[in-house]
């Protein structure tokens, strides 16, 4: 593990904010276990739990907390200066941080989605949801990490994207779904484990290309913005 990844992981797990990651995945598993143990037909609960909660809420919110935390928190408290005053090309700072953010988000979301998928349908669906959500975690992390370098309110902007764009507009304006990470994840999971529980209008090739584009594009943007990172000129 690189020194940047090590500091990032220590910072992430050392902050109380990390505890915010735990309740949502726990609720996801709990609901799935409850529905299964009460014998509710998966056709009734699987879609709202897996998509409505798992992919529409747990995945983006966890990725938002982690993605804005790995760099945004260091920018907020000023500790980022210690890493920036090192002779490291900026990609060697952004990539380890992105790897930690995507990795932590993927594990935090993929495990409960796998469990819920198995309980709802099959191991195949569980694995498909876990794999697709891991790819989604990468795209969300790249987006939110870049947001923490282009705005001082990355969490707010991230929430606007997740709640307004994906959550609200995605339901009423079908065209917006093409630019929705959530829909790309659904398309990929549905391709890996075709089931009536998952449905989207976005095609798999479009989802694959856009996930790659978003992941690479926002990473490049983050590297470029970090190269020009300015410390607020508070004079004293």
């Amino acid at each position, binding site marked *: 593990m690189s020194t940047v990844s090590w500091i990032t992981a220590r910072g992430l797990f050392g902050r109380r904010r990390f505890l915010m990651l735990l309740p949502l995945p726990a609720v996801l598993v709990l609901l799935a276990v409850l529905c299964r143990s009460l014998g509710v037909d998966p056709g009734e609960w699987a879609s709202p739990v897996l998509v409505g909660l798992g992919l529409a809420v747990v995945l983006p919110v966890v990725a938002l907390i982690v993605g804005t935390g790995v760099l945004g928190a260091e920018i907020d*408290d*000023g500790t980022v200066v210690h890493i920036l*005053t090192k*002779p490291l090309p900026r990609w060697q700072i952004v990539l380890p941080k992105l790897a930690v953010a995507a990795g932590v988000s993927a594990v935090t979301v993929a495990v409960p989605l796998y469990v819920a998928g198995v309980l709802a349908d099959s191991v195949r669906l569980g694995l498909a949801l876990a794999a697709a959500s891991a790819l989604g975690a990468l795209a969300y992390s790249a987006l939110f990490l870049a947001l923490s370098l282009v705005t001082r309110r990355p969490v707010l902007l991230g929430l606007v994207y997740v709640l307004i764009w994906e959550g609200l507009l995605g339901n009423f304006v079908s065209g917006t779904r093409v630019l929705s990470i959530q829909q790309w994840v659904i398309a990929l999971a549905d391709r890996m484990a075709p089931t009536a529980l998952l449905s989207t209008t976005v095609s798999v090739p479009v989802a694959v290309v856009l996930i790659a584009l978003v992941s690479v594009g926002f990473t490049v943007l983050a590297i470029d913005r970090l190269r*020009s990172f300015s*410390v607020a000129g508070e004079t004293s």
Partner: protein
Amino acid sequence: MTTLDTDARPAVTTSTLDLVGVSRWYGNVVAVNDVTMQLGSGVTGLLGPNGAGKTTLLHMMAGFLAPSRGTLTLDGESTWRNPGVYRQLGLVSEREAVHSFLTAKEFVLASAKLHRLPDPQAAARRAIELVEMTDAQDRRIGTYSKGMRQRTRVAAALVHDPQVLLLDEPFNGMDPRQRLHMMGLLHSLGDAGRTILFSSHILEEVEQVSGTVQVMVAGRLAASGDFRTIRRLMTNRPHVFAVRSTDDRALAVALMADASVTGVELDKTGLTVRAGDYGAFTRALPKIALARQIRVRQLTPEDESLESVFSYLVEA
């Protein structure tokens, strides 16, 4: 006090920070206005009242702000968008943020590793010793006092033995003993050929650490160099001397006849002499005293302190 072990290191090549016509503005507010200066080896104090632009200037030197106009280079290379300069440059910023979940040892060692030093363990140990933090190095930084955190930050900035060290208000939060130690450390580094620039708005700190100052007032570089020399160049302000002699009254009369003297006050403790020309007065006084067989017991420049130089510059 720990001193820099210059014998154990390779010979230091000095680095030079060059600023030519550097300005920085935010919208309509000019924070730094057309500053030109060159910093070489030794300790220099960056002095100025709050809001003078010291921190903005330091941030630009450290590569954390682009100048709006002008050029700023370290050994010919721009510091902006150039992480390579951090091989020679160390920064201790004013904001005391440190990774509080790490111990000092972990923090300084991480810095050494990020600098890709050949022996990071040894470099971290040396830097921690230098700031006298060895005893507390295994405690989490979050449990430290402000002064200890500051020393840990200095250790991290020194771990790669930079040729240029920039410190923004380095004595903040330090107790008197820690201040003395830090002043000694800066002296050692300056004597060893490093280029040290530290900012402060506390005159005594600057006066004790460095005779060479860069004085910022309202974003401009108001004066530059040894503050005693700066004072002597202020020919529009009379120089004030305290003089004690065997016959103060007779000396006062004789001095008033000399062209270099613009005023004399006589009181119980002696004379306060105002001279328009520093050199002419100090040459004339012995001759005048000798001619009248008066013995001068004490001659002290009264307004050559950094404080008076600074107040003259700020008032100007």
